[in-house]
């Protein structure tokens, strides 16, 4: 039995959706449904309207017109989303990445480090759903 998880990707570059979808298909132990929106507005609408519970939100750090996660993630929290939020960035070295907790972010990951193993680890860590051992 593979556990089903539902993830929302927020990224203004549609190519990232294609790449991440391909990565998600390689994760063997979870059946991942990836939904995709381009903007924070889109994400807010998705959270408000969609009846499906979202297990996780992955979002690009920089999304127009907002500056970075310090502006975007609090908006998602304000509409009542209390699931895990991960921020994807091509560089997580800026000092403000040390303050993710203050802005409601659960984890950060570098684009280059996002591979099927990393996705699997993150799901194990944040989505509490038992994957039965090797069956």
């Amino acid at each position, binding site marked *: 039995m593979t556990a089903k998880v539902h993830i929302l990707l927020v990224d203004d570059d549609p190519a990232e959706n294609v790449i991440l979808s391909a990565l998600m298909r390689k994760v063997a*132990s979870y059946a991942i449904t990836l939904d995709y929106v381009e903007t924070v507005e889109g994400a807010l609408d998705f959270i408000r309207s969609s009846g499906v519970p979202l297990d996780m939100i992955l979002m690009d750090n920089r999304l127009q017109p907002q500056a970075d996660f310090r502006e975007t993630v*609090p908006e998602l929290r304000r509409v009542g989303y209390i*699931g*895990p939020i991960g921020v994807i960035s091509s560089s997580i070295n800026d000092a403000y990445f040390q303050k993710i907790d203050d802005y409601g972010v*659960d984890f950060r990951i570098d684009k280059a*480090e996002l591979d099927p193993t*990393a996705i699997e680890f993150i799901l194990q860590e944040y989505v509490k759903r038992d994957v039965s051992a*090797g069956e």
Partner: protein
Amino acid sequence: MPVLNKHYRRYGFESDLEKALNRVDFFRIFHTMALRYGFEHFGVLQLANEHETSMLSSRLVLHDLPAGLAETYDKRHRINDSAIFKSFYKSTISTVWLGTDAPENGAAGVDFLDQIGFDMALAIPVHSIAGTRYVVLFLGDGEDIGRTEHLEIAYEANCAFDYFYRQVLANKAGMGLTPRETEILRWISYGKTASEIALIVSVSEHTVNSHTATILKKLDVVNRTQMVAKAIREQIIQ
């Protein structure tokens, strides 16, 4: 974590370690370290008494093995019987294990690498500042590892483990609560549930639960009731 002065930090890879905050960050650090040296996976194992029965799955405190692999291993094999596991209690030297020379390293038929399905392992025994023992294990299908790479990865694994222990594993009992933890403690004292606190504080429920676990540890209490009672006694909250 500005604990270490520059004498501790060498060779330029420490900036990542300085910035690491949570388990995902240390996962990234160990995972990329494994890939950089030609391994596929890593695992950080906590060692207990040699004769205490150990399960691989419950000894792994952080790892990137495929889901279910450690559990499947435990169903079929006993890690205590493997030559590699026994070696941790004979010496603390970092060791390379190759699938083909397993028989000469231990009893016949007790071959951890064959059982878990890799050709090569590197076991780097490490220990925490509290003296507890751990092993950073790298697994892969490489042929061998060169001397320079071996020395480098052993040093890097030691450094990464040191930060991992201090930042994540250490029981920070008796230390002060952070402002965020105090805030969550106050909401708990008002009878709010984890999901309600997540909404109020604008973080995920996961974060609230992990803060709550830290508060339990720091105050050295066993449940939320005792937590609030002690916090009032200690005048952390009114």
